[in-house]
């Protein structure tokens, strides 16, 4: 069989707990706006899935400036979930994404379990969304956010509540700021999660030594980018071994080799966050790069590589 024929038989699609992606590369929540911001640079219909900015019930205006800061091989952000609220998202931003035939994953954050449920109900009623990522790990908001993601009982509760409101695939996004990621992942599974997204940012900070103050208006922020890649890989590896759910893995991915590390460590699909800022066409480049690798290695699909490095 020559390469060309084989390429046609190659399956780059991914089924992430019922959520179908044409290729394994998603762009991560909060780093790609509502898709339109990068439209001039990349054909967004070529991306496996666009996970839109974290959305809350009501509009939020976000944290005081400065909100971002560069760190060695990474960045801190403390956006504070600025967003126009779920209704505006569904009615104003979503339609154009649907028109562009983008696989859209919503990302929701609530202050209470009930809010997560309510958000999910609204999304469930609205056609055009392929899945719901639960942001239970945002380190940048006072209420809600991270404390949900660090307590197994709360994780289970939130997932259960959401599952009872929607038939869409539900993907909790786990916080890495925990002692035992496996117990959190198990709680999510016990609550009925269809897949897991990991990892969100590590909580960090920077000091402005000239002003003798924290750099960020919010003091603390979420660390993302290549700096956190080793932590992300470790947690995905641990969870892949212990919990039988597909994983959407990310944290510091900048290129195809990085993405392959995640897939071999157990991720069924990958998400690119900070990498979009560095290279706005990175998601498409990685999707193509993965396809090339699968072809060159004589594999039938990307799925064959998932967990390949797990001992």
């Amino acid at each position, binding site marked *: 069989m020559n390469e060309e024929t084989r390429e046609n038989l190659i399956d780059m699609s991914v089924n992430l707990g019922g959520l179908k992606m044409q290729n394994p590369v998603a762009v991560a929540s*909060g*780093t*790609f*706006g509502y898709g339109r*911001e*990068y439209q*001039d*640079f990349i054909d967004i219909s070529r991306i496996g899935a666009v996970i839109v*900015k974290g959305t809350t019930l009501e509009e939020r*205006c*976000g*944290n*005081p*400036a*400065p*909100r*971002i*800061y*560069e760190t*060695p*091989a*990474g*960045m801190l*952000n403390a*956006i504070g979930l*600025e967003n126009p609220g779920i209704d505006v998202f569904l009615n104003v931003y979503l339609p154009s994404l649907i028109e562009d035939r983008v696989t859209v994953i919503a990302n929701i954050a609530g202050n209470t379990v009930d809010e997560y449920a309510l958000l999910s109900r609204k999304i469930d009623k609205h056609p055009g969304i392929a899945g719901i990522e639960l942001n239970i790990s945002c380190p940048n908001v006072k209420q809600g956010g991270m404390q949900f993601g660090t307590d197994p009982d709360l994780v289970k509760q939130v997932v259960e509540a959401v599952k009872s409101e929607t038939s869409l695939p539900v993907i909790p996004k786990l916080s890495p700021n925990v002692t035992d990621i496996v117990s959190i992942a198990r709680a999510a599974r016990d609550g009925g999660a269809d897949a897991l997204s990991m990892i969100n940012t590590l909580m960090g900070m920077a000091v402005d030594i000239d*002003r003798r103050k924290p750099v960020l208006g919010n003091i603390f922020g979420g660390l993302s*980018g*290549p*700096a956190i890649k080793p932590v992300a890989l470790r947690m995905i590896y641990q969870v892949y071994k212990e919990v039988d759910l597909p994983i959407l893995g990310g944290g510091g991915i*900048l290129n195809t080799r990085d993405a392959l590390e995640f897939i071999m460590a157990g991720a069924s699909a990958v998400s690119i966050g*900070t990498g*979009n*800022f*560095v*290279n*706005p*066409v990175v998601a498409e480049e990685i999707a193509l790069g993965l396809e090339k690798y699968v072809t060159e290695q004589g594999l039938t699909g990307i799925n064959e590589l998932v967990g390949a490095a797990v001992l």
Partner: protein
Amino acid sequence: MPLAEKGTVISNHQTGRDLWEMEFLAPGIAAESKPGQFVNVRLGDYSDPLLRRPLSLYDVEPDAGRITLLYKIVGRGTQLLSRYGSGQLIDVMGPLGLGFDLVQNRRVILIGGGVGIAPLLFLTRELVARHNEVIVLHGTGSSDELCSQGRFSKLGVEYKVATMDGSSGYKGLLTDMMKEALEPLPTDYIYTCGPEPMMSAVAAYASQHGISGQLSLEEHMACGVGACLGCARKLKETDTAYVKICKDGPVFPLDAVQLSTGGS
């Protein structure tokens, strides 16, 4: 429509204390550019520094596909930028942001503080083309930071300088010179870019004299396109919403912004 382009460096050389000029070819970006817009530049091939750096369009010649940047070395990114040699490729996104409104047939004053002069050269070119009488005021610490004189002179506009140490032109604050330089003739419009306390003084003067105008703001950036919501700023303290400097700006009306007046 903005795009990502690998520009080819034509030249890159020092023109003043810590000040450098880089020329590169990027026809796609050059064709779309307007004064006041900026490019977001990726520096180096490694993960540190990681983020792109926003830099104003100092000059643009669309026909030649040529873009010039004027930059001050302040940290790692600008340091790396100064190491690019001619022929090397440079990874640029642009043009980004909303540029200046271009008035016509007016007497306009452009006020640049330090490297804040950068966006005002391309602006001058376009304003001259629109039959404005353009006066450029440039303030720096010392004469070795005045590297733009030749370029402004070529455009045939009046270019006055103030230096803190008096090594060239007016000795003292640009904004003190401003008052002398602008009166008694009426000013129709003011464009300014520079340290906020300076722009604050300019805005106060403008408001006092009922002159409208625009300024250009800075904020740390990641995406440069409005996707990350990182470059947020409240224009006035009483605002509830944050604008995004990269998308809603970097240019804003002079009277829309509450500027830092100095101190810390």
